[in-house]
C-alpha cells in the first residue's frame, strides 16, 4: 500500500487511527505492528514472511550479543553472523540478478537467475535492523527485550517502505513511552498533507512530462525537450521522495513518534557536498556512521580517506539499485564531493551565489540522467542536451510543453525553496485568529485538491465502444 492511494487515505488510515487511540497505552505497539504487517502484506502478501523472519533473526541476535557482552569473541561472532545474514538477504533479493548477469557477460556463460521481484522496502528495513545490531554491540543503545516493541521499530508503517531510515537510538525511548498531544497530532496532519500535496499535486503531474520525454526516441529529441524533460524529472523525484518522507514524518507524529527529517531543501544548495547533507539525510548519516567512520573516516591520512569515500559512494550508488548506471551515478557524486573537499569548496564559497547554485544544479541534473536511464541511453541523452545528435534545439512539441508547463514549473521551483513554508509559518505564528483560519483553510484545500488528483488518476473513460 502507498500513502498516496485512496484506499490508504480513506480506509486503512482512519481505521488504524481509530483502533490505535481506542486501545490502552500498553497495547498500542501491538496495534501498530498488526496494522503495519497488514499494510505491508497488502502489497507483498508473501514477502511479509521474509520481513517477519528478519525481525526474529535480529531480535534474537540482539539478545545474544547482550548476553555475551562480557565475552567479546562470542559477541563479535554474533555481530558478524547477523551482518552477514542481513547482507545475504539483501544480496540475494536485490543483487543476485545483477551479479549473475555480469558473470554471464564476463565469462560468456548462461547461468539462469531466478527472476524474483524485489521485496518492497527491503533496503530500508535491513538497514534499520543492522543499525540496531551494531549499536547494541557498541553498547550505545540498550538491548530491546520486548519483541513487540522491536517489531514496532522495524515494521512501523509510516517509514516502512520508503524511509526515513530511523536509527534505533533515535526512537528507543519513544518505543517504551511517547507523549501524544493534540498539538503534535495537528502538526503531524500538517506534515502529512504537505507531503501528500507534494506527491499528488507536484510530483505526479510533472512526472507525466518526463514520461513523454523519456518515451521519445533519442533521435527525435530536441535539445530543449531533453532539458525540459530532465528538469521535470529533477522536480518529480524530489517532490515524490521528500513528499513521501514528509507523509511518513506526519503519520509518525500522529501516532506519537518523532521521525527524523529526511530532506532539507536540497535544491537550494551551493555545493554538491551541501546537496548531500540536505538530500536523503538519513541515508547519508547511516553511511557516515556505519561505513565511513568505522573505516577510519578522515583521520587516517588522505589515502585512507579517499578509499573510504570511494567505498561510501560506491555503496550509495548500489543501494539505489542493482545496475551499472547507479554505480556510475554514485561514483559521479563521489568524484564531485572529493574534488570539493580538496579545493573547490573554498572557491564555491567565494564566488557569487548564483554561480555556485548553477554549478550545483547542473551536476545534480546531469546526475539524474545517469540515475534514470541505462548507461547507453544516458550517454546519448546527455549528448542531445549538449546539442550533439539532437533533432535541433526546439520544435513545436518543445514549445508547447514549455508554454503549458511554464506556470507549473515556476510553482515547482518556488516550492523547492523554503519560501512557501516560511510564509505559512509566519501567518500561523502571528497568532491572529483570521490568519490561523486561513492556514487551516489552505491545508483543507490542499487535501481536497490532492484527493481530486488521486481520484482522477484513475479516470479512464472508455470511448471506443461502437464509435
Amino acid at each position, binding site marked *: 500500500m502507498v500513502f498516496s492511494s*485512496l484506499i490508504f487515505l480513506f480506509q486503512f488510515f482512519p481505521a488504524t487511527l481509530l483502533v490505535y487511540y481506542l486501545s490502552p497505552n500498553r497495547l498500542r505497539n501491538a496495534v501498530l505492528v498488526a496494522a503495519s504487517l497488514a499494510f505491508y502484506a497488502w502489497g507483498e502478501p508473501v514477502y511479509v514472511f521474509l520481513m517477519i523472519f528478519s525481525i526474529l533473526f535480529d531480535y534474537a541476535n540482539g539478545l545474544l550479543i547482550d548476553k555475551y557482552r562480557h565475552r567479546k569473541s562470542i559477541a563479535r561472532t554474533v555481530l558478524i553472523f547477523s551482518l552477514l545474514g542481513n547482507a545475504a538477504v539483501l544480496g540475494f533479493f536485490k543483487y543476485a540478478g545483477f551479479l549473475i548477469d555480469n558473470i554471464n557477460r564476463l565469462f560468456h556463460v548462461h547461468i539462469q537467475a531466478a527472476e524474483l521481484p524485489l521485496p518492497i522496502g527491503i533496503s530500508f528495513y535491513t538497514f534499520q535492523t543492522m543499525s540496531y545490531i551494531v549499536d547494541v554491540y557498541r553498547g550505545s543503545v540498550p538491548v530491546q527485550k520486548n519483541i513487540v516493541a522491536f517489531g514496532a521499530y522495524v515494521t512501523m508503517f509510516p517509514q516502512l517502505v520508503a524511509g526515513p531510515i530511523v536509527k534505533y537510538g533515535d526512537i528507543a525511548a519513544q518505543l517504551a513511552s511517547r507523549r501524544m498531544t493534540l498539538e503534535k497530532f495537528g502538526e503531524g496532519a500538517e506534515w502529512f498533507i504537505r507531503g501528500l500535496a507534494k506527491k499528488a499535486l507536484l510530483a505526479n503531474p510533472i512526472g507525466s512530462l518526463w514520461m513523454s520525454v523519456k518515451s521519445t526516441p533519442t533521435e527525435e529529441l530536441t535539445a530543449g525537450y531533453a532539458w525540459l524533460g530532465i528538469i521535470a524529472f529533477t522536480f518529480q523525484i524530489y517532490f515524490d521522495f521528500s513528499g513521501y518522507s514528509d507523509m511518513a514524518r506526519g503519520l509518525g507524529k500522529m501516532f506519537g513518534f518523532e521521525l527524523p527529517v529526511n530532506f532539507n531543501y536540497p535544491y537550494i544548495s551551493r555545493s554538491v557536498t551541501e546537496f548531500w547533507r540536505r538530500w536523503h539525510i538519513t541515508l547519508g548519516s547511516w553511511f557516515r556512521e556505519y561505513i565511513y567512520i568505522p573505516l577510519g573516516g578522515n583521520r587516517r591520512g588522505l589515502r585512507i580517506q579517499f578509499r573510504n569515500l570511494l567505498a561510501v559512494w560506491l555503496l550509495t550508488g548500489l543501494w539505489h539499485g542493482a545496475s551499472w548506471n547507479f554505480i556510475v551515478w554514485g561514483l559521479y557524486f563521489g568524484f564531485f564531493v572529493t574534488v570539493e573537499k580538496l579545493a573547490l569548496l573554498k572557491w564555491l564559497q567565494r564566488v557569487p551565489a548564483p554561480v555556485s547554485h548553477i554549478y550545483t544544479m547542473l551536476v545534480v541534473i546531469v546526475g539524474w540522467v545517469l540515475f534514470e536511464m541505462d548507461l547507453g541511453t544516458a550517454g546519448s541523452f546527455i549528448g542531445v542536451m549538449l546539442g550533439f545528435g539532437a533533432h535541433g534545439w526546439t*520544435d513545436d*512539441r518543445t514549445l508547447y510543453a514549455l508554454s503549458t508547463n511554464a506556470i507549473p514549473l515556476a510553482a515547482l521551483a518556488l516550492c523547492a525553496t523554503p519560501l512557501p513554508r516560511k510564509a505559512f509559518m509566519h501567518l500561523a505564528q502571528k497568532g491572529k485568529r483570521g490568519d490561523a483560519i486561513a492556514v487551516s483553510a489552505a491545508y483543507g484545500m490542499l487535501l481536497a485538491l490532492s484527493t481530486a488528483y488521486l481520484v*482522477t488518476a484513475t479516470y479512464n473513460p*472508455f470511448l471506443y465502444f461502437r*464509435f
Partner: protein
Amino acid sequence: MLFVGTIAVLHPALPDRSFSDSENRVLEALPPFSLSSLLSGKFASRYEKYVADQFAFRDVWIGLKTDADRAMGRTDSNGVYLGKDGYLIAAFAPPAEGEAEEKVAAIHSFDRATPGVRKYMMLAPTAAAVHRDKLPAFAPAGDELAYMERIRKLLSPNIRFVDVYPALYAERERPVYYKTDHHWTMQGAYAAYRELCKEMGMIPKDEEDFRVRQVTNAFYGSLYSKSGFRHMQPDSISLYLPKEKTDYTVEYADEGHTTHSLYAMERLERKDKYQVFLGGNYALIRIMASRPTGGKLLVVKDSYANSLIPFLTGHFSEIYIVDLRYFDGSLTRLVEQHDIRDVLIVYNIHTFFEDPSIKYLKEE
C-alpha cells in the same frame, strides 16, 4: 481529519454505481475474496480499483482536477486539446510504420476480388486539420494531411480518392465539426457529399432542398468525456431533412429489426446523441427507397458515414452499409449476391489508421 472521516464513512454508505455515464464504461464492483487472489496480489489491485471507481462524488473530483489544471495553464488532457472558441480537438497520433501500406494492400485485394465494381475512397480529416487555427499555440496535433496524401499516392487508379479536405476547410467558419465530439456535423457531411457527387458524376441536391432542424442543444460528446474538461458549451445537433419526402425501409440485418427512418430520435435522450444518425453502428444495415432512383451502393465505413448516408439515399435505390468492426461475413460475396455496382469506403483518418478491422477487406 473531519474530511477524511466523512469520506471514509460515505463510501460504504452510498450505494455502488455499476456504470458511469460520463466515462461510458462499467465501473469496478466489489471483488470476490479468495485466498489465492489475495496471495497473488490480484485481490488488492482489484479492490483498489473498486475503491477508486466507487469513490464518493467521483465526477465532482474529476471536474475539480481538470479545473485546477486549466488554472495552471494546461490545455490538453488525455490526448484532447482545449482549443479556442470552446473547441475540443483530439490529437492525431502518427500511425505505426507500414500501417498505411498494409491497409491499402487490403483495399487492393478487395478490389481485385470484385473487378468491374466502381470504388471510391473518402478519408475524412478531423477538426485537428480543418480547425488547426483553433488549436492552442504550438500544440503538436499530428499531420493528418501528410498521411492522407500518402494514402492517396498508394491507392491504385481503380479506386477514386475523394478529397474532402478543401471543401471542409473552405466551410470552416460554419459549424462543420462538433465542439465537444470527434465527429463532423451534418453540415460538414453535406460539404463532403458535394465532393463525392463530383467524383461519382451525380448532381448534388442544393442546400435549399433541405429543411435544417435542430433536434437537441444539449449534446456533450466523446471529447468532453475523454478530456474531462468541464464548463464547456454543449453542442447542438441539426438534421438536414429533404423537403421532398421519400419513404425508406431500414433493415438491421443481425438485429432483425426494421424501421422507416434514418434517424433514431430516442437516442437523443441518451448520452451519446450522435447515435441519432442510423441509431449508431451496426454490422450490416440495408436502406431501400420506396421509389427506385438509381443503382445499388455498398458503404464500408466508420461512424463518420452515419451522417453522410442520409444524403446518398436520394441517389441510390439500395444502400448496404457495412461496419467491418462488427461484420463477419464476406464482402465479396455481398457484392456478388446483390449485384452491387458501386462501393464507397468512408473513414475518418483517425479510425482508418487505428482500427485493425479494415484489414478484413483482404481476400484469401
